[in-house]
């Protein structure tokens, strides 16, 4: 009772002075769609909260300096050794400070989850077209936050001044240095001298705990502010239009759900932090420019850059007499292209689709086969790059030469993305034609007809007979139309087909004419097409997905056998 009265007094007095009621009312009345994929961004948000909480704890004990110190403490192999203050304090955090190791590990796990959740969130936005007008601005902010998260992860990973991260820092230094004309200046400006300098740790520390988190927090606020103002997008569905949002109110039902998610994020990060060891810097030892450890990789979210450096052949060339060192193309140019592509995507997509309209309804991913195919191809490339960053681990585990691993990954980097993208493209087309069913229901005929469509430009669904359109005129495939077919019971059905939706009529008709009449009543001005029954004719071949799975398994088995035989032969020859 008393708390309630107090709260009401407080709210009223704040509102009197700041006029907060309209804002709060607006937020509390905001409607959040129920689809799970809208919570991916929240996983990122809550990981950020965990990062700040644990990071503040770490800041209390971390000494951001490379000054010589003597570590004394519970870690016997370092007891009495001289190391940098940063390294000594990180080991002290891990061994001598109560809950220090839990906090350190949870911080690091949260960082991995943070970037992972951002990437998943970005993929959701990308494949559903949520970046389209009017949401381009939030896309740009999101990409900026991704870049800042990568950067902050890298600085955080580097400040403990251990042997492993020092190796990574040296690589970043030489990549930056490789930029023609300005590279030398940039590294001098950033690091204050030749690698390694005493300035690097304190500077990275300030950037890591203050500058970037502050900018991130501001961007998150703007991101969410824009979200509330523009309202959520939503997937198409019954009762969902361009002018409404269907879902739960922020208060109370969504609040409960999102707090549950927060609790889960806390639980998962701290469970990982307590149970799974991450970045054991006490084992790696302090950074020493004369030493090395192998295998060595960076954290996964920057590993694609490292993978590109390992895969790309070492080429140096001259532009206007300026020597451009080999890290320039895979490091600077590739990284730059990646982020330029991300920033420009909404505008490229708009041009490609000639679609400048505002959208509140999302595309199901299949609705845009080209976008889906492109995205899948890029993902395949990045997956190969990530594997390339682990080439030494793969070689150790499989006991094969690193150079062979690199050669295979080089081939994959060139050969995998396009087939992966084309497959995704074809499956999306087949799904779109088949209307609202899952990948598992696709038949081979569906995919083949989608493929034929791409090749010849004939309409979807086998050999339809055009009704209402002159024979031979190539109808644009995406145009709205009505489709008719005879189902397996012999009855006639029809459906409306738009670019991204298909609405199947409930009733079946004994004759084709009746079905056509019904369709014309509903959509008088659309052309009517007779098509093969969507999804699973009687006696249709088994679902393609299952077949493809089986075939892939068989091919994989043969490939594995061949690889084993190949390596055996090589090893024998070497002996």
């Amino acid at each position: 009772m008393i708390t309630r009265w107090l709260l009401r007094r407080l709210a009223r007095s704040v509102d009197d002075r700041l006029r907060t009621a309209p804002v709060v009312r607006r937020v509390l009345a905001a409607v959040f769609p129920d689809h799970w994929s809208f919570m991916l961004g929240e996983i990122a948000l809550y990981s950020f909260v965990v990062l700040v909480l644990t990071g503040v704890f770490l800041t209390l004990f971390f000494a951001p300096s490379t000054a010589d110190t003597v570590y004394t403490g519970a870690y016997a192999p370092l007891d009495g050794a001289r190391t940098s203050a940063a390294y000594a304090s990180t080991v002290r955090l891990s061994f001598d400070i109560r809950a220090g190791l839990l906090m350190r590990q949870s911080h690091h796990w949260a960082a991995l989850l943070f970037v992972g959740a951002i990437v998943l969130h970005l993929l959701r936005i990308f494949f559903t077209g949520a970046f389209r007008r009017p949401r381009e601005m939030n896309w740009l902010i999101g990409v900026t936050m991704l870049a800042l998260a990568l950067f902050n992860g890298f600085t955080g990973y580097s400040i403990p001044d251990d042997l492993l991260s020092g190796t990574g820092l040296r690589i970043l230094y030489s990549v930056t240095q490789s930029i023609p004309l300005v590279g030398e200046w940039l590294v001098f400006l950033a690091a204050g001298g030749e690698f390694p300098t005493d300035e690097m740790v304190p500077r990275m520390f300030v950037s890591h705990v203050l500058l970037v988190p502050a900018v991130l927090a501001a961007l998150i606020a703007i991101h969410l502010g824009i979200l509330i103002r523009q309202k959520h997008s939503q997937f198409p569905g019954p009762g969902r239009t361009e002018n409404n949002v269907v879902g739960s109110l922020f208060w109370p039902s969504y609040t409960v759900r999102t707090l549950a998610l927060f609790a889960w994020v806390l639980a998962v990060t701290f469970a990982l932090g307590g149970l799974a060891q991450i970045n054991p810097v006490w084992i790696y030892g302090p950074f020493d420019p004369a030493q090395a450890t192998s295998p060595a990789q960076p954290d996964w979210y920057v590993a694609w850059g490292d993978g590109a450096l390992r895969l790309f052949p070492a080429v140096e060339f001259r532009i206007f007499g300026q020597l451009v060192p080999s890290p320039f193309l895979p490091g600077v140019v590739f990284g730059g292209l990646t982020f330029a592509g991300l920033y420009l995507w909404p505008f490229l997509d708009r041009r490609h689709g000639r679609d400048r309209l505002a959208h509140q309804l999302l595309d199901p991913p299949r609705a845009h086969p080209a976008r889906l195919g492109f995205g899948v191809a890029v993902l395949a490339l990045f997956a190969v790059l990530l594997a390339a960053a682990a080439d030494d681990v793969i070689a150790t585990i499989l006991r094969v030469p690193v150079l062979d691993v690199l050669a295979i990954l080089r081939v994959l980097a060139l050969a995998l993305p396009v087939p992966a993208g084309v497959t995704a493209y074809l499956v999306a087309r087949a799904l779109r034609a088949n209307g609202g069913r899952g990948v598992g229901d696709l038949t081979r005929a569906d995919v083949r007809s989608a493929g034929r469509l791409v090749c010849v430009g004939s309409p979807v669904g086998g050999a339809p007979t055009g009704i209402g359109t002159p024979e031979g005129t190539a109808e644009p495939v995406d145009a709205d139309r009505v489709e008719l077919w005879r189902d397996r019971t012999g009855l006639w059905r029809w459906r409306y087909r738009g670019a991204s939706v298909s609405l199947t009529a409930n009733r079946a008709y004994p004759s084709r004419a009746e079905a056509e009449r019904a369709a014309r009543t509903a959509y008088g001005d659309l052309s009517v097409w007779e098509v093969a029954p969507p999804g699973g004719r009687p006696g249709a071949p088994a679902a393609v997905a299952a077949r493809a799975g089986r075939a892939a398994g068989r091919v994989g088995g043969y490939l594995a056998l061949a690889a084993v035989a190949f390596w055996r032969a090589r090893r024998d020859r070497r002996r």
Partner: protein
Amino acid sequence: MTGTEAGPARRIGVILAVLGLAAGPVPLSASAAPTPVPPDTSAAVPGGLVSPATPGAGPGSSAPPSATDPARSRGADLFLRSCASCHGPRGEGTQRGPSLVGVGPASVDFQLSTGRMPLDQEAAQPPHRRPAFSAADIQAIVGHVGSFGGGGPQIPTVGPGDLREGRELFLAHCAACHSAAGVGATLTNGLVAPSLDRSTPVQVAEAIRVGPGLMPAFPESILSPAQVDAVASYVQHLRGDRLDRGGASLGRLGPMTEGLVAWVVGLALLVGVARWLGSRAGR
């Protein structure tokens, strides 16, 4: 905490290992003795018929060595049976194996105690396995190979060493190949610097002095005996999960496995939770 508690136990272990190795030959060679039956004890054996034949079987000059030094003949016997096919009956080397003349006891003991020899199939790199021979037999073979020709590093005696110095030396000399965590890493041609997870202190010291396979040998001018002791005791510290203070070690393979766990465990779980929460909406 763990370091100080484990200290004495490890040290005792090291000392026992050293004592055991030093004392090993005495009791074990006694147990190996029954093979060539001495004439006087054979009288006690029920099959007394053998004794008349014994003097006739053992005349000439070949008997005395086996009678005076049974371990020696056991060594020769085992060598002929298990090693000569590749290394030649006098260790002179064949097409299938290098010469063992002058490799030194440390090398032979290392190869046998890590189970690398006898090689049963030709592999690019003999793996660490359970040793094929008992400690006494290894001792006997080492002695026999020593008779082919002198020289080579002796089996080092390893004492307790300074952990801190060991850590520094390990990072400076060994981590580039064996990884700072001691889990091993790839070199060239698919050969690896193996994990040190199963290496005893004596094996570590032997490897340092001998330089097996692709590994360089570190002579006393680079690593003094005290420094070898230090490295050996640090490697013991690396072994097992004593240093994995943070929980499951994930193989100590570094950030890529951690990233994999973050995706496969952490994110998969959270996405599952999001789906579950989403499916509960509106109820």
